[in-house]
């Protein structure tokens, strides 16, 4: 294995996505560049320089802190502690049973309760998460996709009602991406436990409810992050993410919703990977394509609908298990790329994620890393400091052209939904991720500590491990739900269950229906059971779970 993979004169001269990079750039490389047309001012069309005029000078990006483990009570206590320590926004991660619409006491949940996030089965669980906080004051980003996001949105509405908060004051984010919540590409992820048509219908129900009733709530149109994590390159990332978003918008328009209203609160979740300039160019190019498409293709006349806003997480797939402390540096570089690319919110991966789920200590280091970028480096002082650079503008334009070419390919397939259904996306992903590994094996993609500059296992520093108490959490939640089912008003519960089935068949917007249901004791798992029944659909037989 090479210790120095690139002997003198043999450094790779292409970017991660294969764009050829020249030795130097000069005026000729931006000969066609028109600052007024291609850049505009920050906060103005085509938003290349950022979605807002003052950007970080006025308000530093949100330092999101990811929380969620065990029971809602434990998670709420942790959030209270973090609020006292200056965190100002939270991504609430959900455990896997909840993510698929199962209660904590479902047999399928064995060994999974509270492990990857918090378990939410009842309205009371959501109330406990908001204990001490009001949904018009504290922003939670719920990392959840439909069908489950229709139920969590219903629970949020019920919490707001109970706390006397008007719907139009509620803040936060409901991730509402029908396809990419789950990491990886397989369609099986989203078709195993709920029919795809039903998932898309609930996605549109959520968009309709949020845009007409909760106008301050963000809804996430596309989780490009999980897509990128599979190993696709920056060009594919940009094209698949935007292609998917545009397809969701088409669906909303077909529902009769006004693009000038529903697109206002659309947002994205993107990855910042390690190829520094390419990532910055990707963010700038995506904003430009989005602005043009929203204006020219969707016909949006409200400038708020032209600006693309996104939160960023550093790339988990750039982390190494070997010499894990080096990951802190990688996350720092990725945070810089996100900030120079104009992100609205940043979350950095913890350095120990190759070993297990992050600990409190490693999460704190991740937060501190981006606080150094935000408060010490001075990069927040001026907006889009790289604008006008021969290299950056050339690369931004090249990224834009490459992403547009890929988008045209997707259009020719009938749009992103069609491309996913026919397996085209999965094929693209499988090729890309296999190539990614081969590049690491061959040393073409240098990875410090893995294919260059390794140390023997004996010299690796010890890593503290997040202790999983799945059996304990599962048992406690099982007992809680047993009591919940015993104590609720059975008459009201069964009426609410029947109402779900009727309303589904009648084609009603399900969010108010589910709000009524959760207020009458119906659990997360039962909401899904009733919705599956209304579609005459059962979870696949055979030997799968």
């Amino acid at each position, binding site marked *: 294995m090479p210790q120095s993979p690139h002997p003198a004169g043999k450094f790779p001269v292409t970017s991660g996505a294969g764009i050829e990079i020249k030795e130097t750039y000069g005026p000729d490389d931006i000969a066609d560049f028109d600052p007024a047309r291609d850049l505009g001012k920050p906060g103005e069309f085509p938003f290349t320089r950022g979605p807002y005029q003052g950007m970080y000078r006025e308000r530093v990006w949100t330092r999101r802190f990811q929380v969620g483990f065990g029971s809602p009570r434990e998670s709420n206590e942790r959030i209270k502690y973090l609020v006292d320590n200056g965190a100002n926004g939270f991504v609430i991660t959900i455990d896997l049973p909840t993510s698929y619409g199962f209660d904590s006491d479902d047999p399928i949940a064995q060994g999974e309760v509270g492990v990857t996030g918090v378990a939410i089965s009842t309205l009371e669980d959501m109330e406990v998460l908001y204990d001490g906080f009001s949904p018009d004051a504290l922003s939670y980003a719920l990392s959840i996709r439909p069908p489950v996001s229709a139920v969590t949105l219903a629970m949020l509405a019920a919490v707001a009602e109970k706390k006397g908060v008007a719907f139009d004051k509620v803040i936060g984010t409901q991730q509402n991406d029908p396809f990419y919540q789950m990491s990886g590409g397989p369609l099986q992820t989203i078709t195993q436990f709920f029919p795809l048509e039903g998932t898309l219908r609930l996605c549109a129900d959520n968009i309709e409810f949020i845009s007409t009733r909760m106008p301050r709530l963000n809804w996430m149109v596309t989780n490009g992050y999980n897509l990128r994590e599979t190993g696709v390159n920056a060009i594919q990332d940009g094209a698949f993410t935007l292609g998917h978003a545009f397809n969701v918008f088409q669906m909303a328009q077909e529902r009769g919703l006004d693009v000038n209203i529903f697109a206002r609160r659309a947002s994205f979740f993107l990855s910042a990977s390690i190829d520094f300039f390419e990532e910055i160019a990707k963010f700038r190019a995506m904003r430009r394509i989005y602005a043009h498409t929203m204006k020219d293709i969707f016909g949006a006349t409200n400038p708020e609908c032209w600006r693309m806003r996104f939160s960023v997480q550093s790339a988990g797939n750039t982390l190494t*298990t070997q010499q894990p402390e080096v990951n802190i540096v990688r996350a720092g570089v990725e945070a810089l790329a996100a900030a120079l690319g104009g992100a609205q919110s940043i979350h950095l991966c913890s350095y120990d994620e190759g070993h297990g789920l992050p600990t409190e200590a490693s999460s704190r280091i991740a937060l501190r890393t981006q606080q150094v970028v935000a408060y010490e480096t001075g990069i927040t002082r001026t907006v889009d400091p790289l604008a006008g650079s021969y290299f950056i503008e050339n690369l931004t334009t090249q990224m834009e052209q490459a992403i547009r070419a890929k988008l045209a390919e997707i259009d020719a397939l009938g749009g992103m939904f069609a491309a996913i259904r026919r397996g085209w996306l999965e094929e693209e992903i499988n090729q890309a991720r296999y190539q990614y590994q081969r590049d690491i094996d061959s040393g073409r993609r240098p990875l410090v500590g893995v294919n260059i500059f390794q140390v023997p296992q004996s010299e690796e520093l010890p890593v503290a491990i997040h202790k999983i108490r799945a059996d304990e959490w599962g048992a406690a939640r099982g007992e809680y739900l047993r009591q919940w089912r015993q104590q609720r008003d059975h008459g009201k519960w069964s009426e609410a269950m029947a109402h779900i089935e009727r309303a589904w068949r009648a084609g009603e917007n399900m969010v108010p229906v589910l709000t009524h249901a959760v207020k009458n004791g119906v659990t997360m798992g039962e909401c899904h059971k009733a919705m599956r029944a209304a579609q005459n659909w059962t979870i696949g037989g055979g030997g799968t779970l």
Partner: protein
Amino acid sequence: MGKHHRILLAKMGLDCHDTGIVIIAQLLRDHGYEVIYLGLHNSAEAVVRAALQENVDAVGISFLSGQHMTQMRLLMEALSRHQLDLPVLCGGVVPRDDADALAKLGVAEVFFPGTLGPDLIERVGRVLERQDHAA
């Protein structure tokens, strides 16, 4: 290499991170193995049933989200219920501290993140060679 080997790969539980296992499947195929990949969300019973039906030489399971101890215990129990003696390989985001516990369960090899392709092929080959000799 001698004998032509068949390997069953699967994901268990609700975890859907399949990048690692899909790459491994292709890597093994490229090195002459016949791979049967069962996809996501398999129960222990389903894995064992497929292993019997397909008459495989080894089983490989990949994890990312912390289910490895629970699911590997269920799988090893199911294998012994069916009196099926096969080398079981485990890979993914598994804390090194758990490697001993997995070995005690009877897991033949644990592949941590960052394992390079050639290393993995060599170790899988050794496991199967041992199995061939034992048989």
